[in-house]
Every structure is written in structure tokens, then in C-alpha cells.
């Protein structure tokens, strides 16, 4: 597909955004990411093990910043302050690259977005010149507020991170789509290809996923499936689906039959 989406100052060729967690190894990571066709790839920032072997392979060796648009996330941060510090470290790490994925989540097993801390961190980061793609709940009002703050993309969860349950509340996602101007990208919750297609058919600008690909039995093949699922859903959205009908309607003419 030749269509693109504009996220802040970045023009993306693929509507599929992918994570790099949970893979068996960096080799599988690289092959799956390549098969996905994504150009935005998320990564995490973690403390360097001081003792470690200097020749140990690094994520950035397989996912080159020259080839992919890296999207550092703030996964694991439970406060606005930690999220902001993490973003600043990421920006330095990537030589001034200012696109970040903000997520501030609770410590509870749902890993549910903490919308109050998220709003606070978003304000600080936007003031500090970051282009913020923000992970949030499916609360339409919070989504509107995040757009007002200046986030370049709003990314409501489809279902809990890593659950693979598929879109739990299409109503709210549609509501967000009806009210926002910046790109709305479903983040988290997709379990299989059709879940991604459904999100795109609702009119989302894109889908961000990690576990659905990394934990499939064959991640590289699932990455291909997701790439097609996203394109398929977007095309279906643009094509405009047939109306649902309560009763059947013959596909072949009901006249001119032999007797």
C-alpha cells in the first residue's frame, strides 16, 4: 500500500507498529520485525549490566536506527517522574531522537494505564520538546485531554497488555475515533490477525503489538499474517463494508430459471 500516516513530524509507511520484547533471541527478533514490514519499532531502556561482556550483541545491532524508526517506551514506570527521566535517557541514547512512547501503568496485575500520572507526564514531556505517542485507557475524555496537551498520537488499549483477548470495548474506541484529530492507534490486546483487522475496520490509524507476534508458535509467520491483517483491515475500512441485513438476499438472479 502506498498510503502513509503522519505521526507528529514522522511519516510512517506501515500502519503496523511492533515491539521487540518476549522473543527467544535477537535473531528471531530481527527476522520477525522484518517480516512485519513495520517501520516503527518499540524498545525499552534498562540499566546496563556493568560486568557484561562488551561484545554481547545489542538490540540496536539488529534493529538499526538507520533502518527503523525506534520508539523507546517507558514500560515499567509507575510514576510520571520515572517516565520523564526514562524518556530523557532514551533521547540521549538515540542521539536526540525525540519520539517516545509514554506509558505509566499501575503495579496491579492488569498493568492498567494510570491516567492521572500519564496526563502529568505528558504535559512535562510535551513542554520538553518530545513528540509523545501515549498509551492510555479507552476513556474518551482522557484521550481528548491527551490530544489537547499536544500528544502526537493517542494509543488506547484494546485489552490488557499481553492478554490477547482482542478489542474489549469497540464502543469506546469508536467514540475516541469520532472525537480526535491526531492518529488513534490501538496498543495492546491483539491476540490474532482478525483482532488487528477489526481494529483497522473501526477506522484506527494503526495498531501496535508485541506479544501476539512474539508468542505465536511461529513468530515470523505471524508477523506476515499481521502485516496483511493491517492492510486488509485498512482497505476494508476505505472500501466501505456492505450493510448488515436481517434477512437473506440472493446473490444470483431469481428470474429466468428453468422450469
Amino acid at each position: 500500500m502506498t498510503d502513509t500516516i503522519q505521526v507528529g513530524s514522522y511519516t510512517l509507511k506501515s500502519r503496523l507498529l511492533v515491539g521487540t520484547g518476549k522473543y527467544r533471541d535477537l535473531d528471531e527478533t530481527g527476522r520477525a520485525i522484518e517480516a512485519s514490514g513495520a517501520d516503527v519499532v518499540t524498545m525499552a531502556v534498562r540499566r546496563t549490566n556493568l560486568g557484561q561482556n562488551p561484545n554481547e550483541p545489542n538490540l540496536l545491532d539488529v534493529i538499526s536506527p538507520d533502518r527503523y524508526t525506534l520508539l523507546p517506551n517507558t514500560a515499567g514506570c509507575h510514576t510520571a517522574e520515572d517516565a520523564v527521566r526514562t524518556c530523557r535517557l532514551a533521547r540521549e541514547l538515540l542521539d536526540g531522537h525525540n519520539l517516545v512512547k509514554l506509558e505509566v501503568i499501575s503495579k496491579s496485575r492488569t498493568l492498567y494505564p494510570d491516567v492521572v500520572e500519564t496526563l502529568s507526564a505528558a504535559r512535562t514531556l510535551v513542554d520538553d520538546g518530545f513528540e509523545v505517542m501515549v498509551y492510555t485507557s479507552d476513556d474518551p475524555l482522557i484521550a481528548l485531554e491527551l490530544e489537547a496537551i499536544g500528544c502526537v498520537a493517542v494509543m488506547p488499549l484494546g485489552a490488557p497488555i499481553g492478554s490477547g483477548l482482542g478489542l474489549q470495548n469497540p464502543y469506546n474506541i469508536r467514540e475516541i475515533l469520532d472525537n480526535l484529530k491526531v492518529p488513534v492507534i490501538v496498543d495492546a490486546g491483539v491476540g490474532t490477525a482478525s483482532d488487528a483487522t477489526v481494529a483497522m475496520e473501526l477506522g484506527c490509524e494503526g495498531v501496535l503489538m508485541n506479544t501476539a507476534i512474539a508468542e505465536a508458535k511461529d513468530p515470523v509467520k505471524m508477523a506476515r499474517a499481521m502485516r496483511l491483517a493491517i492492510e486488509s483491515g485498512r482497505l476494508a475500512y476505505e472500501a466501505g463494508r456492505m450493510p448488515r441485513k436481517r434477512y437473506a438476499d440472493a446473490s444470483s438472479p431469481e428470474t429466468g430459471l428453468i422450469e
Partner: protein
Amino acid sequence: MQISVNGEVQTIGPQSLETYLSDKSLLGRRIAVERNGDIVPKSQFSEVILEDGDVLEIVHAIGGG
């Protein structure tokens, strides 16, 4: 003197951040450094002289979703 690096306390002699990183074979690696809450740009590694009580965070990129 003592400094804290990624949460662990270390005893070192007077030296620049560059020297410290070089001893740890981290120089030239894709890392970022925060000192006492502030980012230290790569360009300033040589100028920054570590002081007693410094708190460093040294990070790199890893897989994440």
C-alpha cells in the same frame, strides 16, 4: 570515594566519567548516562569529574513492547 552506579555502591579514586566508563569497557557502546538526576551528554564525558556521593544511572536499549 564512593559513588552509586545503577543502584550499587562502588569505591573509586578521583577520575573523569570518561575514564570510569572506559574502565568498564562501556565507552563507545550505545549507552546513556544520568548523573544525580541530570543527563550527561556523550560530548561531556571527559569533562565530568566524578565526585563522592554521585549517583549514576547507565542504561542501554533492550527488547520491549
